[in-house]
């Protein structure tokens, strides 16, 4: 029962795919699924057992009715310069979304979507908590047509006989995806999240009992073996190593599921990434919407001679879906040369890699060392008072290491700035380079702490849109005050005369 949609008449109102109610329903059910199951399994019995059985059925019935109604009330129309979406029955809404406002287009196909030959489309604008429009679901060819339409800002006709060839910029073979899994901590994150969720969802005693029983069995087994001191140590080390290895395997598996067939391509100044093994994701963003760039190289990256290149876009991430949907990773993993080539291609004015960096004054290392030293001294003092023995001095052993690390950090910290781009670099074990076009800066801040005033230094902070809390801040620390002032003036003058283009 395919809906014969006239593709050539742009002003006709269209509906979602006839099966869309099923996917809306599944989405709704998924939100309540775990609590429902938990209620049925663990909360059963007792005087309310009738309602325990009927309650979920009623809830599902209501959800089905809601989903079917949404299918009948949701219409969208493709205009010449924007989309308009009408939905609701009693409470009606009409949204007009100009194409120029859409920053990111996401096409998502889960396994079930693929069975039905449909896809979910999300149109995202800058900021906000929710996407501008979420079409759950469209027939795959309609979804693709909508994507091209938004890409061309509605200028071209819908039916393009064969899309113009897109330049492939980067594709990851399976070996690279395995490497990506090895360097990432996805497995650990998933395990921690699953553990937390299990603890929240199941009644307290169930999880606690499970862990208690398990550890008792383990200890019982271990004491039964009557191991010596050394063999116990070896056994526990082996156990820890096994756990770490399992986490890495899980990471690799997750990376394969998420990043299989990763391909970054460029078409008409628009970047598109597609990836995924079971559920496929295709997301695209215009090149000029990129707000800031981060190049990262951790220890494992360095061992494998790889780096990763991430970008910030102004599209807001939904809570709990970090990094899942929006285009954030241009190169999840690639050789340093490939990363540099990508930057050269996409941001030629950056003249990457830069040779000229202004580094931190060498004597500034102790400023990095100072906070950790203060904390250590306070901790040591507290321990001395609490234990009253010289063992309390043990934390002071950390200080030489910390001083050494600060020296190394100070040695590598540097910045470079010209008319177009400002870049900083930092880190030691785990290194980063972060840069942004000056046009994309939003605000500036000059900070002088009491110590800065005494030593004649200042720190300059630069703010960009869409920066995540995890990425290193765009700041230049411990600059000589005169340089900081000059740079601050130069940047504010430059910003005042350039319009924000995003």
């Amino acid at each position, binding site marked *: 029962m395919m809906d014969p949609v006239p593709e050539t008449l742009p002003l006709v109102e269209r509906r979602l795919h006839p099966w869309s109610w099923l996917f809306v329903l599944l989405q709704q059910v998924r939100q309540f699924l775990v609590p429902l199951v938990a209620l049925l399994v663990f909360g059963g019995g007792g005087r309310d057992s009738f309602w325990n059985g009927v309650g979920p059925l009623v809830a599902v019935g209501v959800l089905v009715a809601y989903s079917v109604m949404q299918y009948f009330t949701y219409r969208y129309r493709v205009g010449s310069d924007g989309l308009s979406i009408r939905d609701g029955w009693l409470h009606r809404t009409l949204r007009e979304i100009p194409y120029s406002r859409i920053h990111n287009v996401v096409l998502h196909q889960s396994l079930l979507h693929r069975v039905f030959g449909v896809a979910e489309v999300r149109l995202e604008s800058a900021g906000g908590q929710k996407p501008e429009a979420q079409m759950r679901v469209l027939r795959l060819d309609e979804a693709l047509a909508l994507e091209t339409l938004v890409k061309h800002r509605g200028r071209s006709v819908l039916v393009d006989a064969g899309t113009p060839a897109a330049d492939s910029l980067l594709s990851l073979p399976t070996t690279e995806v395995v490497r990506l899994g090895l360097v990432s901590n996805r497995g650990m994150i998933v395990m921690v999240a699953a553990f937390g969720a299990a603890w929240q969802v199941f009644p307290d005693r169930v999880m606690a009992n499970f862990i208690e029983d398990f550890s008792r069995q383990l200890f019982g087994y271990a004491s039964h073996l009557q191991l010596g001191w050394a063999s116990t140590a070896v056994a526990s080390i082996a156990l820890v190593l096994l756990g770490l290895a399992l986490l890495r395997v899980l990471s690799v598996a997750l990376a394969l599921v998420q990043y299989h067939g990763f391909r970054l391509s460029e078409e008409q100044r628009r970047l598109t990434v597609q990836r995924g093994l079971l559920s496929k994701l295709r997301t695209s963003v215009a090149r000029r919407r990129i707000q800031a760039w981060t190049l990262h190289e951790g220890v494992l990256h360095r061992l494998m001679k790889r780096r990763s290149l991430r970008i910030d876009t102004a599209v807001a991430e939904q809570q709990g879906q970090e990094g899942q949907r929006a285009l954030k990773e241009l190169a999840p993993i690639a050789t340093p040369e490939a990363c540099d080539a990508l930057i050269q291609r996409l941001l030629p004015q950056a003249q990457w890699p830069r040779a000229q960096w202004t580094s931190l004054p060498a004597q500034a290392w102790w400023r990095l060392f100072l906070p950790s030293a203060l904390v250590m001294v306070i901790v040591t003092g507290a321990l001395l008072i609490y234990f009253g023995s010289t063992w309390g001095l043990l934390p002071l052993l950390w200080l030489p290491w910390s001083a050494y690390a600060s020296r190394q950090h100070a040695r590598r910290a540097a910045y470079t700035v010209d008319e177009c781009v400002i870049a900083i670099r930092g880190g030691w074990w785990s290194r980063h380079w972060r840069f942004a076009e000056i046009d994309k*800066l939003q605000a500036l801040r000059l900070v002088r702490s*009491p110590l800065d005033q005494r030593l004649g230094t200042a720190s300059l902070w630069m703010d960009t849109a869409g920066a995540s809390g995890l990425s290193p801040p765009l700041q230049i620390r411990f600059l000589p005050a005169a340089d900081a002032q000059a740079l601050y003036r130069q940047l504010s003058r430059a910003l005042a005369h350039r319009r*924000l283009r995003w």
Partner: protein
Amino acid sequence: METDQATDGVATAPQDADWHHLPARGAKLAALGSAMGFAIPIAVAMVALTLVTRVGSPWLLAPLGALIGAAFGAWIGVKRHRRTLWKLDEDGFALQRGRWWQTESRVPISRVQHLDLKRGPIERGLRLATLVIHTAGTRMAAVTVAGMDGTDAERLRDRLARQLDHDDDAL
């Protein structure tokens, strides 16, 4: 490499003609806000301290702590209020704060996204207003100036908002 090494006026001179102080009548309000901010945490800390160390009575020390905290907070509030300066020039809006811990923030006019003008009942009585300048940034997404003169704030809002109208590509 810096191109212009403008070394004039390295020490930010607050007596600069462009910089505007906040009206003095807002000092009391700033003092009140800051006093509350210090008094309550210190009172709570005192209660916790007396309960842990069992020295002194919480009924005596908590109000005492609150009083000292309020006095200190009021002093800080007045100081901060006196040291908050703003300026609007052709480059945009700038805000200077603090003497001990100095910050100077700048929002170029071209980066202003939208503006809020807030007036609480006390602020209204004193003809004051709070101006919030929003940018699309993340860490400095909003620059807030509390205790501004009401007419100044309105003038600023109109001046900064006019830029938005000129910027036809804003949306």
